[in-house]
């Protein structure tokens, strides 16, 4: 027989939250890993925003004398073959990585929301057509589609963002479409329609906000996968071009030749990628638990 401690259960459900501060404390106690994830993400976001102030060196200027210097007090993460400071390159790399991840997730998200909302709301031939287009886009692994897209668009920062955003569209469209389908039958949507609201307004004011929870969960997960795809594309030479410092390209430039003599060139950029993706994944898991309680375990 299990004894139920009512006070403990109430506290666990957050019934005693009375201020913003205690809400944060409650969150921290129940999602310690999420807090850790948020902390990681914040560190990288700050590094990306304040790269000029954090990096003590210029990420692009070369110093022949410092070629392949191991970590020292001056170059805390060592320097690459051309004597460029690795710490500066990783800090500036955070900017590129996050710009690509956030913009491609946003772009893919917006297109996906539009398609999903219209599909689920209008149904008919538009829905049929979009469903087939989504089927086609999902018939290739994310990286393969992004690879072909990136190659056909040509290497540039904007094109990399576009190439990564398009493969994200079908997942978002699927999620939004399926919640729209169930929402459109809800009494409150019918009520809004009966009250004389235009279809477009009903869709935007009543249906869209209710699809937000799964959307946020998905977007957080996509953020991590966008970072990984960018790193992979750049590693293969089809991503962000010079002179932007990209983590993926740093690995491909350095890996083959210098892995033996200068392991720091391989370890640190990869660590940066893994850490920031780990942070977004922790955050994504917690958001899913909070926003989608049906999936909570």
């Amino acid at each position, binding site marked *: 027989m299990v004894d139920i401690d009512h006070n403990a259960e109430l506290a666990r459900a957050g019934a005693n939250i009375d201020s913003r501060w205690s809400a944060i404390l409650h969150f921290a106690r129940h999602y310690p890993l999420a807090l850790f994830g948020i902390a990681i993400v914040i560190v990288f976001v700050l590094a990306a925003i304040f790269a000029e102030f954090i990096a003590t060196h210029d990420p692009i200027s070369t110093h022949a004398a410092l070629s392949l210097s191991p970590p020292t007090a001056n170059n805390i993460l060592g320097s690459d073959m051309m004597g460029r400071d690795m710490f500066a390159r990783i800090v500036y790399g955070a900017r590129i990585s996050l710009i690509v991840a956030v913009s491609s997730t946003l772009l893919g998200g917006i297109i996906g929301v539009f398609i999903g909302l219209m599909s689920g709301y209008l149904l008919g031939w538009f829905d049929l057509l979009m469903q087939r287009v989504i089927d086609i886009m999902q018939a290739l692994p994310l990286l393969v589609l992004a690879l072909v897209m990136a190659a056909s668009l040509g290497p540039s920062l904007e094109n990399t963002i576009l190439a990564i955003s398009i493969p994200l569209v079908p997942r978002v469209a699927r999620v939004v479409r399926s919640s729209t389908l169930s929402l459109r039958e809800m009494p409150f949507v019918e009520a809004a329609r009966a009250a004389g609201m235009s279809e477009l307004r009903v869709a935007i004011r009543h249906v869209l906000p209710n699809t937000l929870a799964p959307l946020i969960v998905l977007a957080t997960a996509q953020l991590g996968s966008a970072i990984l795809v960018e790193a992979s594309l750049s590693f293969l030479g089809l991503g962000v071009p010079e002179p932007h410092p990209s983590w993926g390209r740093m690995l491909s430039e350095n890996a083959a030749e210098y892995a033996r003599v200068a392991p720091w060139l391989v370890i640190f950029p990869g660590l940066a990628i893994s850490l920031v*993706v780990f942070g977004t994944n922790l955050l994504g898991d917690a958001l899913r638990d909070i926003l989608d309680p049906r999936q909570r375990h």
Partner: protein
Amino acid sequence: MVKRFFLMLLTLIGMSIIIFVLLRLMPGNIVDIMFDSAGFVDPAEKAIIEKELGLDQPIAVQYGQWIWGLMQWDLGFSYVSEMPAVDELGPRIPITAKLAALALFFSVLFGVPLGVISAVKQDTWLDYGLRVISLSGLSMPSFWLALLILMFCVAQFGSIPIYLDPPENLWDELLLYSLPAAAVGFRSSALIMRLTRSSMLEVLRQDYIRTARSKGASENTVNYSHALKNAFLPVTTIIGIEAAFLIGGLIITETVFNIPGVAHFLVEAILMRDYPIVQNLVMLVALIVVTVNFLVDLTYGALDPRIKYAD
């Protein structure tokens, strides 16, 4: 089922059009790349080669020729090697297929049992530890893991088995493929583990499990013979999908380990604008993905009698 089959066909046709158009949108074609490296451009000569390759014809005609050839099992010739695309792809496919199979074997071998343990020991330190490991598996770029494995082996053993000639016996093959398979399989095993865990937890909360417990069934009987059976259904889906999607991870792993499989070949062909290779290879990948999805749906229906497909 018949309807699903036709939808599958429709998807493949759509994919062929998209990939064909995307390839022709790429800046520069093989002739540009050849002349770039030669350092001079003679427009007349360029036009001759383009005509030879059929690149001067309207895109619709080129597409028609490709599809017409496909239907007769004629995949065209590689622009780079001038060999039939079938002969270029043929020997490379088994290499990638073996790598993928080994990676999938590793990921199921570790993913499923660890996922079950994580669920059964929910909210213990073991569970937390396994979850952090699986989450880091999803966070690490597979090529970085591959590089770390390479560096570690070189530091420890002085060398690693490198692909020089096709391996002669099974043992050599296993030795050669197990490191890259582990590098790419870590991610899949993390994914499978997470799904097994959540699927298992979902099932453990159901009424029939409580019934089994209240009848006095032992914890092991409940977990492994009652729950696991049903928890395994969604896991089969993800295993199937991962099998098809492993090619994404293999593109990079084959590049890092310098293994001459199709995944690495795809990147080379894209960089060289070798249209016949790229379009046929992409179609092959798409064919595998849609076939696997179709088969997964079929097995799903066979494994779970509650699921019936309406036609």
